[in-house]
Each structure stands twice: as C-alpha cells, then as structure tokens.
C-alpha cells in the first residue's frame, strides 16, 4: 500500500527528494490542468508550475497540515499564476469589435479541436479571479469552503465570481456551441 501524503511530507522534511517526486507525481495531473487553464499558455503554465514545485520543496516545513499537502501546494501554484498574470501584458481583452469580427468571419466550429480553442479563448477573457473560482469549483470540484481556504475570499464573493464567470462564458460561447 502506498504511503499517504502526510507520510511522504514527513520524509520530504527529512530531505528525501525521492519522496517529493512521488508526492508531486501523485498530484501532477490536477496541477498541470489548473496551471494551464489559469494561464492559457503551455509555456507559462510549465514555468509557473516548476516555480511552485521548487518553492514548495524549499518551504516544506511551512506545510502545517501534511494530510492536506495538495491544498497547500495548490495555494502556492495559484500565487505563482496570479503573479504571472499580473506581470503579463493583457493579450486578450474584452472587445465588442473583436467579438463581432470573430463571429462574422469564424470558421466551422463543429470539430472538437476548434471547440476546445474557443473554450480556451473564452476562459482567457474572464477576469482572473472569476476564472480561478470557476476552475476550482467546476473543473477541480472543490467545495466553496475549500476554495475559500485556498484563496482567502469569502464564500459569498466566490459564489458571485462563479456566477459571473458562467454568465460570461455562456455569452462568449453561445454562438459557437452546437449542442
């Protein structure tokens, strides 16, 4: 039977890098998915995640609840992503003209790959805190309590962000969704 997160964290505190490798491999799918969706760019996501993983190892003594290592690591990753977003020039901004242009001249969007592109583009147009809340709630399926603990926001603020994200996503994707 494999070791629990808490057991592995204990070994990492003793300097066991192999234990850290096992620990982060266990969670890598969620981490990679969240970083990519938050940043919308594979290279940025890879950099942010590498940064987060190295910081986490170096500050492992600050993980006060080893059984909740994943949540602790997620919070570090989210901080790295937020820092990147704050520094990055806005690549895509809300633009009625741009939206209208794209809808008018858009290609056939019935293929799965193009649907995915539209999703990624729509996500990038959300405000960062709305995107973050939406992903954590509906993709990572965390409870509002868990998200509040990760982000420091109140539950009511988080619900508002998720609702606004859903409205915006519906608006951005309604013309390209073929249900």
């Amino acid at each position, binding site marked *: 039977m494999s070791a629990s997160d808490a057991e592995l964290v204990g070994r990492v505190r003793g300097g066991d890098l192999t234990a850290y490798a096992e620990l982060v491999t266990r969670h890598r799918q969620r981490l990679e998915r969240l970083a990519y969706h938050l940043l919308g760019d594979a290279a940025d996501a890879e950099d942010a995640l590498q940064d987060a993983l190295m910081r986490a190892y170096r500050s492992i003594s600050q993980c006060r609840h080893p059984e909740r290592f994943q949540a602790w690591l997620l919070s570090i990753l989210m901080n790295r992503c937020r820092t990147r977003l704050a520094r990055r020039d806005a690549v895509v901004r809300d633009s009625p003209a741009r939206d209208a242009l794209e809808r008018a001249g858009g290609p056939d969007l019935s293929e799965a790959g193009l649907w995915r592109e539209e999703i990624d583009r729509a996500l990038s147009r959300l405000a960062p805190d709305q995107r973050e809340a939406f992903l954590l709630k509906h993709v990572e*399926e*965390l*409870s*509002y*309590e*868990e998200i509040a603990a990760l982000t420091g926001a109140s539950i009511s603020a988080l*619900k*508002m962000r998720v*609702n*606004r994200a859903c*409205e915006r996503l519906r608006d951005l994707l309604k013309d390209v969704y073929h249900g």
Partner: protein
Amino acid sequence: MLILLGAPSPPLLGQEARLAARLPHGTAVEVQRLVDSAARLRLPTEPLIQKALEGESKGADSSRIMVAVGGLLARMDTARQALGNEASEAELVAGAAALRAGADPGSVHTLRTLRPNRSLFVPLSVLADLLSDGVPASQVWSSVRDMASNGASDAQFLRLRDRLGRDGADRPRPLPPAPEHAPGEASPERP
C-alpha cells in the same frame, strides 16, 4: 425536561464569570446550574454558555434563555446516547443541531454504525444544515446515509451540502421554478 426536575439544588461547581457579567443575577444562577449539570454529565459546557450569551445579546427574556439552554443540554444528552460515550464535543454539538433540525436519534445512531472510526462532526453538520434549509428529509437522509456507507470524505459531505442547499442545482424546486435573482443579491429572507 429531564435532568433537574425534582432534584435537590446541586452545589454550584463553578462560577462562569461571563454569565454573571452579562445576565441578570437570577438567570445567571439558573444557567450556571445547567452548566454544572452538563459538567457532571461530562457534556460540553461552552455551547450552553454561548447559547445564554446569544440570548442576552438578542435581548431575550430569562424564560426564553432558559428554554434554549435547557433544550440544548437535553439534545446533547440525546446525541450522546445515539453516538456513544466516546463522542467528541464537536460531534455532540453537531448531533444536537441535527436533532434540533428534525433528525431522529435512530438516524444519528445509524450514522455512527456506518462510520465508526471517523468523526461525524462534518456529516452531522451537513445533515443539520440541509434539514434546516428545508430540503426534504427523505432526500437528505438517503444521501447522507449512502455517503457514509460508501466512505465519503468530509469534503464530499460539504460538496453535498453545496449541491442540495439553498442555492444548489440539485435542490428540489417547486414548479414553476422560483424567479432567479441577479448575481450578487442576497437570497431573500426566509419567513
């Protein structure tokens, strides 16, 4: 009520300064007696003190405070009978809340048998919250029972509450559906 009727006045085991500072003297003495009873029965005392202070802050009269504190003491006692003597303070508080919301002691006991080695604090809290929210008891109970049987985590119970609670999508709705309100508006007051 169960514990003190007909019993001789027990010696006061301790003076809780907060009660004396905030409540009228007579009320403070009576509440202190209930607190002392709880202590002798090895039931949590702090929730009783908080209940009395809540009543004081809300301007309730003494009789109402006594009913509230006495009722809570009784429910914690019932919760312990259902959960066993090893129940933690958190489990007893949550169990008392579930009983107040309409759960029956047999259901609380069933939860203990389904989840014997893990705390029932969160499942009982979720049970209490959903019943208080007006979710049909049969739906609440079948969901909570099944999750406890299947070894669900505390986080999964909290997500259940998100789904079935006041704003949840899986919450049964009357027909026609209630009008939506704009994001950011508080939910309307319940009658």
